[in-house]
């Protein structure tokens, strides 16, 4: 990439690079602290911070605290972090791709479509397992997204951003209704449904983590690899074409990466809303618009946000649990209103 050499050659850029490094370091330490707090805070069995550390770094014992931390808390924290990273990165990719500040998996119906796919497979074709769920999620999210793009007339020059969002809301409502209907019809007990629909990492065990991390890591790496192309996309279609980019292929690649990221996280934790909308804007305010710097920052911020939401969700109505997704929706919705007011 020739752009890279231009970037690092000038000294102000280098100073900015230092600031970036420090900020990332700060974010990383925040993330680690949150992860540590998430291991022990608000547990039904009282745990302390030192116990959590011991459980992590000493030989496994049969003590209750060890088992709780290793078998319940650690996978939960890890899944929360990775899901947050996936959703935030997907949001950043979508915003880069559509140049629409309101674009995000939740707003454009990708989450809802993926959730519909997962619900259909797990209720009517349970034998298909996680692979089936993931492919159905990708398919559902893809169909929903395409529908929103077509109905919102997204590729037309001067497309109305608001129309796109409304199309997304309607498609999400449709998918949501179908999801609820299929789940209620398949199971008499609707209580679990509510939690899953809101998006929760409370039931994340090691199996969830083992299913999540290979796909998620691959998706995140692919996203990082696409970062330079996204930077070029940002200058406009015409310019990007002049710079020798094949727009169609790049868009397709970004779209697929988004779908993979979203479906992996929906399969693991249900549809957690607003992370994809909220985090890229926060990251852009902190780290600027260069996608090569923005995407890693989004990963860390998204992870931190979902971890914090999970901790909050346990704290709000202790000892019962509130899904992280419900907490995030409560934080994210006012932000959505603000965005609608200022950016359309």
């Amino acid at each position: 990439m020739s752009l890279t050499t231009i970037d690092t050659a000038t000294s102000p850029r280098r100073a900015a690079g230092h600031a970036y490094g420090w900020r990332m370091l700060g974010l990383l330490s925040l993330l680690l602290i949150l992860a540590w707090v998430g291991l022990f805070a608000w547990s039904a069995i009282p745990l302390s911070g030192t116990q959590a550390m011991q459980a992590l770094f000493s030989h496994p014992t049969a003590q209750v605290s060890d088992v709780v931390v290793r078998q319940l808390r650690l996978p939960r924290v890890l899944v929360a972090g990775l899901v947050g990273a996936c959703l935030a990165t997907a949001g950043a990719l979508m915003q880069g791709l559509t140049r629409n500040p309101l674009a995000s998996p939740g707003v454009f119906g990708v989450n809802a479509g993926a959730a519909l796919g997962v619900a259909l497979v797990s209720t009517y074709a349970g034998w298909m397992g996680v692979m089936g769920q993931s492919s159905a999620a990708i398919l559902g999210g893809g169909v929903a997204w395409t529908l929103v793009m077509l109905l919102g007339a997204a590729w037309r020059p001067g497309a109305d951003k608001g129309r796109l969002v409304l199309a997304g809301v309607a498609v999400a409502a449709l998918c949501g209704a179908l999801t609820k209907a299929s789940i209620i019809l398949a199971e008499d007990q609707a209580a679990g449904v509510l939690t899953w629909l809101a998006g929760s990492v409370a039931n994340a065990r090691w199996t969830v983590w083992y299913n999540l991390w290979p796909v998620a890591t691959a998706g995140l790496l692919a996203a990082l690899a696409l970062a330079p192309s996204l930077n070029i996309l940002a200058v406009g279609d015409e310019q990007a074409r002049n710079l020798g980019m094949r727009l169609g292929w790049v868009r397709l690649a970004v779209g697929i990466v988004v779908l993979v990221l979203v479906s992996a996280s929906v399969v693991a934790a249900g549809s957690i809303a607003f992370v994809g909308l909220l985090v890229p804007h926060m990251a852009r305010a902190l780290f600027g618009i260069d996608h090569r710097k923005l995407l890693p920052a989004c990963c860390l911020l998204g992870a931190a946000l979902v971890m914090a939401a999970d901790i909050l969700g346990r704290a709000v109505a202790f000892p019962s649990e509130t899904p992280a997704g419900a907490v995030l929706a409560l934080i994210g919705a006012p932000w959505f209103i603000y965005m609608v007011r200022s950016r359309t």
Partner: protein
Amino acid sequence: MSDLTCPSRHRQLTLSPLQQRVWLLAGLLLIAIIANLCLGAVDLTLTQVWQGLSAEGEQYFTVHEYRLPRIALAIGVGAMLATAGVLVQGVIRNPLASPDILGVSQGAGLAAVSLMTLWPHASIQLLPWAALAGGFSAAVLLWLVCGSKAPPIRMALTGVALAALYSSTIDFLLLTRPLDINNALLWLTGSLWGRGWQQLYTLLPWLILLPAALWLSHRLNLMGLGDDSATCLGVRAPRVRLLALALAVGLTSAAVSLCGPISFLGLVSPHLARQLVGGRHQRLLPVAMLVGAVLLLIADLVARIIHPPIELPAGIMTALIGAPYFLWLLLKLR
């Protein structure tokens, strides 16, 4: 009913197309009522239903205590939501507007859920009032956030965003302080499940608002010409607008407080009615009420019989009809 029909220039036995449509709709309502009485977890014959209407009948409980009040409630709620939709669309002149798109339904629902979770012992009679307060606050908040002159898409967008906030708060309340789960589904999607005579009696006083809406219809017609023309013709536009919106909020809140936010009904029914009989409110309002009642009856019927004894919330069914319709409206609105 004479208002519904064409001004008859020459009385003949043949019905004008307009009359035909209205009679067709009325027939549809009758069929929907009968189907609702007969079908369900237990299928009844017409004679069984007839016998069930009297206290000695074998099926008295099913028919009288269960299906009859539910049908009446569906008709009432459907008519109210449709009327609210007509009123809002009439004075805001925005085809995408309706109480549920603008967040009024969810606001009313949030207030009702808050009342139920925070003061579980409050009487059911208080629910409509709490919902009313919530609905009005939601309307005022929308007005504060986007102003009265906002273009259609922006207004709908702000309403949808506010609705998302309210419904996520409802989610949150339900998840932190669990009600029983059927109540929860009621508040998330809207349902007629387990509603009976008590709820119907709570609703009855609010039905007064329907004739009030009809009384406004002449002024609403003039409002359709634009504020300036309406003022020239002797209508105080701001006052009529405020009155119509207040009526709409009242109707929506009362309906929502009993059946939860039934989505898209208030959006779809006015449009369907307008396609049937045109935009004169004297006709539009009653026909929209009919359409709303028929739609909700059918939605509830399908939700009940699709997989008995499990019931889907009727709100899911209306969303399945309404969301595609909304998308179509969005496509048409260039």
